Structures are given as structure tokens and as C-alpha cells.
């Protein structure tokens, strides 16, 4: 392959779809006010996070919003070293799936801890960052420790 051939590229297409969040505006407004809501089906009682305005179990569309207490434990985690193009300006980040006390699971960055300090079953708490922050993002997880418990109470 010659140099000129290797540089031959198709015409680029750039598009970025609008993200439709209107039906979940309660959630995004909540993030701006420091609250994280899950949705609860009024018919069958299923609690959903991410929140949904339609229930996948009973197919009804009447929901209630339930504010999460924000406490949970690490269920699994990784540290992303090779970042996607749109995260190329970020330092490597730890991503956690946490099981919250209400039973739902949340995927988010864990900040304030080294990879070697992250353990399965460790207690974490949810912190909101606002819906427009980009980055850091809407909500993150932090290690839960004694000092912060006192600060919160």
C-alpha cells in the first residue's frame, strides 16, 4: 500500500442525536437539587434504576418517584485505562456497579479511592454533581467512611 493510498479516506459524517429526557425530567431536575430518584411502578411495585416511565414487567405507565438514600456496597468494578475518544482528556477512572440499600444497582465512577483500595462489598455513597456537569458527571460514588458519616449527620 502506498502512502497516498493509505491516506485515502471516505467523506466524514458527523452527527450527534438529541437525547430525549423529557419524560424523566423529574430525575434530571432532582440531580440538580442533590437528589437521586428511582422510579417505582404504581401497579406492580417494581423499583427501577435507571428510572423508566414505563414498567417492563406489567407494561403500565403510572410511576412514583422514590428518592434513594444514597448508600450501597460495591458489587463489582474495573479501572478504565484505555479511554474512548470522547474521554481522552480524562485520567483513567474507576467504574463501579454498586447495590444500593433499596435493592437497585447503580453504575458510576468511584472517586476518592485508589484502585488497590476498592474492595467488593465495601460501603459507598452516592454524590450528585448536577445534570449539566460534563465532566465530572451527574452522579458519582465515593467511599463511605466514619468521618463522612459524622459530617452528614
Amino acid at each position, binding site marked *: 500500500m502506498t502512502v497516498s493510498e*493509505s491516506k485515502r479516506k471516505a467523506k466524514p459524517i458527523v452527527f450527534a442525536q438529541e437525547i430525549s429526557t423529557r419524560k424523566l425530567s423529574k430525575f434530571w431536575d432532582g440531580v440538580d437539587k442533590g437528589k437521586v430518584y428511582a422510579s417505582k411502578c404504581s401497579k406492580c411495585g417494581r423499583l427501577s434504576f435507571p428510572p423508566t416511565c414505563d414498567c417492563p414487567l406489567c407494561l403500565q405507565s403510572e410511576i412514583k418517584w422514590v428518592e434513594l438514600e444514597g448508600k450501597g456496597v460495591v458489587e463489582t468494578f474495573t479501572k478504565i485505562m484505555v479511554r474512548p*475518544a470522547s474521554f481522552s482528556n480524562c485520567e483513567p477512572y474507576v467504574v463501579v456497579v454498586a447495590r444500593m440499600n433499596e435493592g437497585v444497582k447503580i*453504575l458510576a465512577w468511584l472517586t476518592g479511592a485508589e484502585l488497590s483500595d476498592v474492595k467488593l462489598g465495601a460501603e459507598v455513597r452516592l454524590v450528585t454533581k448536577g445534570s449539566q456537569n460534563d465532566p465530572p458527571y451527574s*452522579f458519582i460514588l465515593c467511599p463511605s467512611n466514619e468521618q463522612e458519616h459524622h459530617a452528614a449527620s
Partner: protein
Amino acid sequence: MIGLNRVAVVGVGHSKFGDRRDVSLAELGFEATRPAFEDAGLTPKDVGFLSVGMAGTWYDDFLPAVVVSEYSGMAGKGLMRCEAACASGSAAFAAAYSMIKSGQVDVAMALGVEKMIGVDPPTMTEVIGRAGNYLWEFHNFGMIFAGYYAFYATQHMKKFGTTEKQLAQVAVKNHKYGSMNPKAHFQKPIVIEDVFSSRVVAWPLKVYDCCPISDGAAAVILASEKLTKSLTDSPVWVEAIGISSDTSNSTQRSDFVGLSATVSAAKTAYTMANLAPSRIDVANVHDCFTIAEILAYEDLGFCKKGEGGQMIQDGQTELGGKISVNLDGGLKAKGHPLGATGVSMIVGLTRQLRKEADKCQAPIRNGRALAHNVGGTGHYCYVTILGS
């Protein structure tokens, strides 16, 4: 599936996998379709239906399946593009199978073809990193594909004591067989130290725990029972296809120690074929990451849950072991051109059942082979059982 109107694989073709920027998508497809026609003793005129497995969203053409079909002489035939992420090839195979099984056509081709290397790596990481739920996992948190399998590795290691060395042993095994497959992307064996010294992609997974990004194509021709008998003395019958799926959000999964889509698809396939896992002679399982092969051993019933690490450590999945797995090099060394992979698995297993696999020929005792093709992180799963 034994009974009337059985469906057989009567022709297979496979391109060289790897960096194939030397050819266009259609030219790459042709490298698989022509040998498949030659193998079957058929021509494009004989085909009633073509399904094209292709996952990419990055092609210059909006309708790349049509471009590929025209180039291989099948314009005018029934045509469908099938997408099931990394299992798109198996989806195409299932579509072609169904068209014959239902009596619509007597001959169908499943072609898997994908070109990935022409896209720069950070952009490709961006695209396939969106293989979960974009808004809740990528937009805010920048997940990458390896990160999802890392979730499974982390929990599996903690719960069952699976080690990074056992993960590395999967890579070493599959590179060894890849080095004996002239069509494989990687042609050199590796050692454990190569895996350990490679950089971390998504902890605990390192570069050598991950399959490469590859270009490639594979094709199979399927025929009705009636026609098969006039075409070949060594048909490979499709005994069963099990299909399943799972949630897009990883937060909706009950645990991270196995893929429930694999368990479910395998159960369907074993029931359909009336077969126990112990009767499988040779399998191609979805080893997009080393942990994925260990999960597959367990979820397919080759061993008990939690014993997959021990199974690779003990060499039970080597050629001549309890069950031979990924003797074509697997995704890990052969390469993983997304849509081509599922069809490539069928090509490799057909050659195994025909006893044409040369240095990598598994002992065929029961005449049964299994292909396990996962799309995403268990978002899709296809388990196909073949019999000679």
C-alpha cells in the same frame, strides 16, 4: 431437530483474518463466498436466499450488504442484513437455516463480513464502548467494551478464586492453535509472561486478555435435506440452534459470574438436539476476552460454575482433552471481525466434523460440535450444535 426437512452445511469458505486494508468490504466478502461455492459445487444462481452478518455502523455505504451481495453475484436473491453485535454472523446463520427449514428455499448462504481496522482505534473504542446502554453507562461514565468483561472477571476472581494466570492460560492456548491456522490474524505462540507484561486495558484485563480488532469474512452454504443428498457424501447437519438475550444495562444483571444468555441459549440447544454437554467433541466458544472463555466453559455445562479456571489450568480444553475448545485460535488469536465471527465458528467446526482440520484435528468420537457466539456482554447469545 432430527426429522423431516433437515438442514445441512454443504459448503464453507473463509478469508484471511487480520489487517485487510488491502481489499474493500465486497472484495473481502468474495474471498469467503467463492471458496464456499467451490466447496459446495454450487454457483450463485443456485442460492435462494442470502443473509449477511455485519455489525458495523461505520461503513461508507449505507446499505453495505447489498454492495457485498452484488459483488459476489447474488443481486436479485432474497437478502437480509443481520445484526446481533458480535453474534451477527450467527444471526445470519439462523436466518439462512430458518429459510430452508420453513421450506421457502433449498439453498441459502450465510455470509459474515466485517472491516474494522480502517477506523482509528480511539474512535473504534468509542463505538464499541457503547455496547451497553449509551445514556446510563457510556455518556456519563465512558465505559469501554473490555470494561464490561472486567466487571465479570473481578467478581469471578473474588467469588471463585480464579487467577490472572488462569486467564493468561486461555490466551496462551488460543494463540498456540492460532499459530497453526494460516487464516488467523496472529500467527505466533505466546507465553504467560507476554500476557502479564502487556498493558492494562480495563483492570484486571490486559492487552493479551483481549481479542484484536480485525477484518475478515466467512461464508457457509446451507441446503435442504433432499438437495444435500445429491450434493455431498459428508454433510454436516444443523442439529439445533438456541437463541437468547439479556439486558442492555449491566445494572439489571443479577450477578457478574456468568452470562445468563449463554445458559439459556445452551439449554434450548441441548434440549433441541437431545444431547448432554459431555457428548460434544469440539467447541468454538466466544473468547473475546480470556474471562469470556472461562465463563463459557461453565455456562455451557463443560464444567460446574466456578471451575472454569481450573479447567484451563488442567489443560482439559486442549486438543485431546476432555473437550477441545477453540482449535482454530478462537477470537483471541484468529481475530474477531464482528459479523464474520459466528460464521467462522461454523466453518471451523464443519472442517472438524469432516476431519479436515489437519494439525488441529480433534478426536471425533460422538460426531457433535458446538458453536457459542455471544453478542456484546451476553446481550445476545447463539448456541449452534452441528452433527456429522
